[in-house]
């Protein structure tokens, strides 16, 4: 009898709830359901071995977020497009996402923040806009007119809602009695921003992945 079976017999509703939450969305935040999250952390080993043995997935959990990494897809009928988290249609949108990750890493360094801290990092949209614009100008020095502030704003405009939709960012609404300019809108970096693959980011973009093991 596996450790999770044992746990399932003793606390079936909780185990089922945690398994469901993990499979319902790419990220399970502590703030989603604190009690279930603590349960998962307390029995992380049992859950991890269950996913590893049953699915070949890796369960990763830190103080704020848990998620499952899936290396191999077995159903060929699910196209790569179906698996994509984002619906980016142009290179510059992908770049904007990558630059958000870079901006996030800079903020972590500036504020000496770590995942252990209870508060998430927050930033003004205007700061991200300036950072992204500067980086675009650095990347495309021959096109200074193509990446003016307004151009970069147009690039970010469709990206931000997607990042909110998939819970990478959370837009904080200003108080009712306060009018805030769009550039002063505050976003909170949700824990998903920590959870990109550091193995993948360390390898060249065009590197072909290792061949997948044949489906059983």
């Amino acid at each position, binding site marked *: 009898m596996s450790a999770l079976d044992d746990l399932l017999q003793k606390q079936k509703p909780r185990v089922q709830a945690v398994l469901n939450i993990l499979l319902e969305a*790419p990220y399970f935040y502590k703030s989603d359901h604190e009690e279930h999250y603590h349960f998962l952390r307390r029995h992380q080993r049992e859950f991890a071995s269950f996913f590893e043995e049953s699915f070949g997935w890796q369960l990763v959990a830190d103080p704020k977020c848990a998620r499952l990494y899936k290396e191999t897809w077995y159903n060929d009928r699910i196209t790569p497009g*179906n*698996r994509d988290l984002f619906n980016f249609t142009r290179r*510059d949108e992908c770049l904007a996402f990558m630059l958000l990750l870079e901006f996030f890493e800079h903020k972590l360094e500036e504020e000496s923040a770590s995942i252990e801290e209870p508060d998430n990092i927050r930033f003004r949209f205007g700061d991200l806009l300036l950072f992204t614009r500067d*980086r675009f100008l650095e990347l495309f020095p021959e096109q200074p007119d193509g990446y003016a502030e307004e151009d970069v704003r147009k690039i970010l405009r469709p990206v931000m809602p997607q990042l909110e939709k998939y819970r990478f960012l959370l837009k904080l609404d200003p108080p009712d009695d306060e009018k805030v300019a769009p550039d002063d809108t505050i976003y909170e970096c949700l824990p998903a921003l920590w959870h*990109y693959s550091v193995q993948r980011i360390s390898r*060249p973009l*065009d590197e072909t992945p290792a061949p997948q093991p044949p489906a059983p």
Partner: protein
Amino acid sequence: MPIDAPTESPQDPAAQLLERRNRNVGHLLLSERAVPYVTLLAAMLAFRREHELEPLHEDLHAAVRSALGGEAYTAELFNQDLRQLLIWNLITDRLEKERLRGYKDNRRRKFRYRLADEAAAFLLWLEARRHDDLEPADTDTRDLLSELIGTLRETVRLFNKTGVESLDYETARGVFYRLARMGALTDDVSRTLGDFNVRLLGFATSRYDAPTARLILTELDRFLKRFLNRIHTLRTEITPEISKLRQGRLTARWQACLALMQEESRASAHLMRTRLPHPEHALAGLSVFYAADGTLERLCGRVNTAALHVWRKLFTHLRELERRSHRLEDLRARVSEMAALPATVVPAAFLRRLLAPARLVGDMHFWDENEKALPPQPHWERHRVRAETVQWLDAKPRAAEAPVQSLEEARLEALKTWLAQRGLLPAADATRLVSQGAFVAFEDFPRLLELARNGLLGNGARLAKLGFALESTAAPVRVEADRHTLAFLDQRLRLRPAAPQPPPHP
């Protein structure tokens, strides 16, 4: 509206501190040219230390020139800086007349400068702060506690070798000095541990590079093992010594010492201004401070918690620093590679593996084989200019030469053709009953209905376009065709007289 500065009253202690102070010294810290100003003043202070109170203009320039960029620090700049310091009253100047030595040597006037006391004091304060920065002289709590143990043992020994009857003023003075010293040392212990705690917490909120963080981690590790253990050991030595001094057998000695000191103090009330601590209260206070769960233990507990907090924070920070430096480098490299792709290319495979979700992100709308999902909402960009929609109509197909005919006209022509085929067309002055037609197929019945609709509805306006009129009769009839029967009241079809033409206009 500007906020009014608080009124300075001469009785206010803060105002008294500021009284007669030259507040222009503040400009030295805030000014953009703070470095040249302070260099200049420091050079004057150096002259002063060599007993040259009023250096000459040229000598001063020579003294500061090398420190301020050599030739780049021109005489004009030097004069400018001097002028500013003169305006702020941080230096004073004096003209010195020299004797005439020759024809070429006209009576020259030379300036001498003197450093104001306010500026000199400020420079000394700056030097002291710098010295503290470079060589901080914190007291080690362990030394203080060791000294306290020595003082306690010394006092016990003094009491043990001196009986009540042989106590004199000198011995009593020594005992009370030691008692006061114990209080002062305890205060110092409390202060140093408090300062230490604050400094530790300061470590937790600062930023470090990886080597510094690693160094502090090593220091903390050593500190946690040694510092607190030693304090604990010393405390356990202090407690019994205090208990010894509080023994009942020594009460008489304490009382005798106190009486002697009070008598002496009364005797020279105007000359000696000493404060005599009450031995019992002082020892009770010490006992509480050094007890097993006393103030010292609590202070050490705070320091320990702060140290652990710093250790944890720095450990995480160090781990993050090492990880992040690689992550940032990797991120920048991938961003550069991505920028080299064509503008329309999306590196979807890379992003997919970067995020690797363990679930299908598919169509989130409900649909099945019968019900279609709602289409996605069209994207609407706020700043897009919405132009008016123009719908271009295709050109109507036209026959080559035939005149244009409407659909209704075509239908009426078809009806006329059918009437002719079924023998229903009336002669010029005669009528035809509809029931007299030769019907052959079921399709004739809809034609009959069409004839009735065109001839009866709307006063028969449509049928009138063919030149016919239709009127109902009271005779019920039945017509048959293709094994089907239609029953209706018979109708009479006749030619419609032509409408009178309007008279031509004059």
